[in-house]
């Protein structure tokens, strides 16, 4: 109906694109921005063309919404659709797959999510929905302020999914664009030049803020910020680790080049457990100058076992620690300067505190292969007592350890009594247990439920609630292994990180600070200390194709525990050990609770949408209560506003008496006599309050609010339910006040039509 003001449209589009900055924290890469923008622009363009060619506002909304599904099909399922855009069952299946992929990616991966077609599709839908909502609220409902609700919702989701450490600058463009939109849609309309200046200024500032925010684009990373977290330390290293996980930024901590694929980078181990706290157990420290001969191998480990050698170059870019991150098991180190101290017990490599930053060095490591025939042979039997001797620290358990830990361990790993499988199979069974029993990864649940820590009680609670982060998984598996007589300790370090480059045999990986991790190391005879990965949705379970855990699973492939079973494991024990080990359809989420998760997700989305939709009505209710408590004039303006909501508009030039007369007429004809009398009494009181001398008595003033309530109820009841619903859901009085000239014009039209 009304032509679109270019400055308002520009401000709206800028607000739309300003959301890219916080959302960028959710996804890897920048391809999704194109889809987001393209679908948003389709909707905005449809709105612009529709309105400027005189379509009614409602029709514009319908047309813009109707354009989106064909565009989605053309973009993501053109190859299976009829005539590129006509949906069929295959198209439906395609989108079901895409959403399943998306949900799995959300479940399995920490943000940012890896790029993929599902991200593009999600970005396209997000762009279309947001653009439609903005268009609707700015141009149809004419309540541009409401866009803030949706922008805020996106920001909240970004914060919730990314981590609390999202920099404030990520929201600056959004806030600027929002203010600019409010500025150019004010009443009376701003002069064109001023409005253009505001919009241009907001766009420029937003661009600057966006480009300097980490996570957007390629040049935007702030490398080596001042936040160099010391990963672990203090009284309870694992509690610290949890805190770090919650606060660490996604900035890079280190990068490494490896010739054997991705590797876990270990900092240290926590082997000493006093019943409540896990601490590093300092062993014999041996000074080591870089470039010297290889470390003396520990008995039963290292180059003596089956495995292979890896050469890794590490560059620390944003980590401040007293230990050097190295892949296990390091046998030699060169590069850098100064003297290192090598712990002869667990091969932790210590430097002076604060000396890790900027250091680069080459590590040669021995990667044991527990899968090899030689290793398997020696791993069959449990350790004899004298073999356990050197590892006494690593099998010690407090007397008051909760029963549930041992019981669970034996139930999981000893299906046929204490002697059934060898230690390696027992360990794998434990690992599998965490992946297949509905455990979820959550940084917040332990804190919320009060079991954040590393004591035995915490582990018992964790086994019960089945939600926690890596420290809980690692400690639980460590304790369970000790219950089975397997020496075990907790390793602390970094997940393998993301691949950032590839040159022939070697690949380069970047590890972010929030990839800090803890995992159990178990001593397996014939292989030495072997790392396992019980933590769900972080890394992936052992496969022993290579001797180290694999990098984070590509999201298209769910972790399939059955594949990780050693081929030589006896089929009978495998089937008996875990009924859920049967192969699952590859595109189904592997968790029995996933059906529930899916519905929870849907419900949450619907609840959020409903909350957004109801927001104007809720705000209106708040405004109503406030007005009714602010005295007669405010109560009267509330009556006028409710009349506007219900379509009983009263022109601004109507006096209270004239307005009351019109509304009383309406009420009386609808049979709301009580409300009509209440309205009359309220009007009389309002008139005295507003125009009479201050000394005039106004007896009716006291019960003004109650009269107003009666009158308002009557007014609503005088209208059919459809109008009442619209009045609640999209209250027209929430629109910005029109200029008086417009009001007068429409008032005159209405009067000439017979008035109301």
């Amino acid at each position: 109906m009304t032509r679109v003001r270019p400055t308002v449209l520009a401000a709206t589009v800028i607000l739309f694109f300003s959301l890219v900055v916080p959302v960028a924290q959710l996804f890897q890469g920048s391809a999704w921005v194109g889809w987001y923008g393209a679908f948003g622009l389709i909707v905005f363009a449809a709105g612009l063309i529709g309105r400027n060619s005189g379509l009614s506002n409602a029709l514009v909304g319908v047309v813009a919404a109707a354009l989106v599904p064909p565009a989605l099909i053309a973009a993501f399922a053109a190859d299976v659709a009829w005539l590129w855009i006509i949906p069929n069952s295959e198209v439906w299946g395609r989108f079901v797959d895409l959403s399943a992929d998306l949900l799995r990616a959300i479940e399995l991966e920490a943000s940012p999510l890896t790029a993929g077609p599902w991200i593009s599709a999600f970005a396209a839908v997000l762009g279309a929905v947001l653009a439609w909502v903005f268009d609707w609220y700015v141009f149809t409902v004419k309540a541009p302020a409401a866009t803030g609700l949706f922008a805020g919702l996106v920001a909240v989701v970004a914060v919730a999914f990314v981590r609390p450490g999202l920099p404030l600058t990520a929201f600056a463009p959004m806030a600027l664009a929002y203010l600019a939109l409010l500025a150019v849609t004010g009443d009376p309309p701003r002069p064109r030049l001023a409005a253009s200046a505001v919009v241009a200024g907001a766009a420029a500032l937003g661009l600057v803020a966006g480009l300097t925010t980490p996570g957007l684009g390629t040049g935007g990373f702030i490398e080596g910020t001042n936040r160099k977290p010391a990963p672990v330390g203090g009284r309870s290293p694992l509690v610290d680790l949890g805190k770090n996980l919650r606060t660490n930024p996604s900035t890079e901590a280190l990068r490494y080049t490896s010739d054997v694929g991705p590797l876990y980078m270990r900092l240290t181990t926590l082997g000493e457990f006093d019943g409540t706290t896990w601490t590093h157990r300092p062993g014999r420290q041996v000074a080591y100058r870089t470039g010297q001969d290889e470390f003396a191998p520990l008995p039963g480990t290292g180059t003596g076992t089956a495995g292979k050698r890896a050469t890794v170059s590490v560059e620390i870019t944003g980590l401040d620690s007293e230990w050097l991150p190295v892949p296990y098991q390091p046998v030699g180190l060169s590069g850098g300067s100064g003297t290192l101290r090598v712990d002869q017990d667990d091969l932790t490599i210590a430097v002076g505190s604060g000396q890790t930053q900027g250091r680069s060095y080459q590590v040669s490591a021995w990667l044991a292969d527990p899968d090899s025939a030689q290793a398997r042979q020696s791993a069959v039997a449990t350790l004899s007592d004298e073999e356990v001797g050197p590892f006494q620290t690593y099998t010690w358990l407090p007397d008051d350890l909760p029963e549930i830990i041992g019981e669970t361990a034996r139930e999981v790993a000893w299906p046929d009594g204490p002697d059934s499988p060898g230690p390696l199979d027992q360990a794998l069974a434990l690992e599998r247990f965490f992946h297949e029993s509905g455990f979820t990864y959550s940084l917040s649940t332990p804190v919320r439920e009060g079991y954040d820590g590393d004591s035995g009680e915490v582990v018992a609670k964790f086994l019960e609630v089945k939600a926690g982060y890596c420290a809980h998984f690692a400690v639980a598996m460590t304790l369970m292994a000790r219950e089975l007589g397997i020496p075990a300790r907790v390793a602390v370090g970094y997940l393998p990180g993301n691949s950032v480059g590839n040159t022939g045999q070697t690949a380069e990986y970047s590890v972010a600070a929030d990839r800090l991790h803890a995992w159990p190391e178990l001593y397996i005879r014939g292989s030495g200390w072997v790392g396992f990965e019980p933590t769900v949705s972080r890394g992936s379970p052992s496969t022993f194709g290579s001797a180290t855990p694999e990098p984070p699973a590509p999201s298209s492939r769910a972790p399939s525990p059955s594949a990780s079973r050693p081929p030589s494991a006896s089929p009978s024990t495998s089937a008996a050990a875990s009924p859920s080990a049967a192969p699952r359809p590859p595109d189904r989420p592997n968790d029995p609770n996933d059906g529930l998760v899916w519905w929870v997700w849907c419900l949450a989305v619907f609840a959020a949408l409903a909350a957004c939709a109801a927001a104007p009505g809720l705000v209106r209710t708040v405004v109503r209560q406030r007005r009714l408590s602010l005295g007669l004039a405010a109560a009267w303006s509330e009556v006028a506003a409710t009349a506007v909501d219900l379509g009983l508009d009263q022109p601004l030039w109507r006096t209270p008496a004239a307005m009351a007369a019109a509304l009383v007429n309406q009420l009386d004809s609808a049979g709301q006599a009580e409300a009509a009398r209440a309205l009359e009494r309220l009007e009389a009181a309002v008139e005295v309050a507003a125009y009479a001398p201050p000394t005039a008595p106004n007896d009716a003033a006291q019960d003004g609010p109650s009269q107003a309530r009666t009158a308002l109820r009557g007014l609503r009841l005088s209208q059919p339910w459809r109008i009442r619903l619209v009045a609640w859901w999209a209250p027209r009085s929430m629109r910005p006040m029109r200029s008086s000239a417009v009001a007068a014009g429409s008032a005159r039209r209405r009067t000439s039509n017979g008035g109301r």
Partner: protein
Amino acid sequence: MDPKHLPPAPPGSATAPPAPANPGLAASGLATPALGHRAVPGHPAHAQAQSHAEPLEPADVAAGAKAIAGNIGRVIAGKSQAIELTVTMFLAHGHVLIEDVPGVGKTMLAKALAASIGATVKRIQFTPDLLPSDVTGSPIFNQATRQFEFEPGPVFANIVIADEINRASPRTQSALLECMEEGQVTVEGSTYALDSPFHVVATQNPIDMEGTHALLEAQRDRFMARISMGYPDEEAEHTMVRDRDLGEPLRALRPVASLGAVNRMIDACRHTYVADSVSRYAVALTRSTRRSPVLALGASPRAAVHLLTAAKALATVKGRGYVIPDDIQALAGPVLAHRVMPVTPVRGSGGMAQAAAIIRDCVATVPVPVAAGR
């Protein structure tokens, strides 16, 4: 004179016609003494005594105004709005311009008002050869005293009916307008105060006739309101036609209020409370006419003064002690319409309707203040 053909009379007036017939005023003890009192004309600097102890309550004024309007209604049927407006303007101490086609009772209205309050009434028939001294009066040589003595003109009366004012020359019109503005007459260096209340009811025909001099904008501005009578409806016209033959109806009218009481009513109207928001509203309304694109000339600041004064009288006549925006809106047409000049004026009687419509549109551009004034 058959009583049954008369319009229903207010109670009491039939039984004791000469006595003040308003119970409200009688009860408040106002109507008794000054019946027939009139100022002695010709006394320089004569002033009506205003020594009233207590201002009247709005309810008393309302009762008095209702009695006067009812009395006038006995001779002019079916014109209650015009009558009420005339009474209100009288109590607002504002002069009125009754503009309408001949023969609808303009003069009758003015005369009935005068008769209802026992005031002196003079009628001046304006003609092209009427001179200013014919209006104001002039010094006459007295043979007996051998001195010039001022002989007061017809303007020395409480109510002056200036019939067909647009037929006189502008010079004579100006003489009357000066009296209206100043409230006094200055002849040959001597100043003579006019009666109080002094109320001019001018009539003019809207149709342009030969030999007329239309009032200029500045002259129209002196009138507080322009009142249009309009034709009576069929029933009222029939009653009028039937009763007119039975005799001059004005003779049956008896005063219902004394001049003193009327002066106190005027005083009460002047003291009616106006909230700040309401006076601002009156100003905003007046100013909106100056912004109107269809008006070549908007209303003057004097118009705003008149508008608020008239609104105070209307509020009081309705028995309210304070002005509400409804009063302002009700009077915006009568008070403002004759002062504005449309860009494309409609000639003849349509001009009044056009101006009234423009003022209505102006009213529709000004939001009514509702904020509590306390």
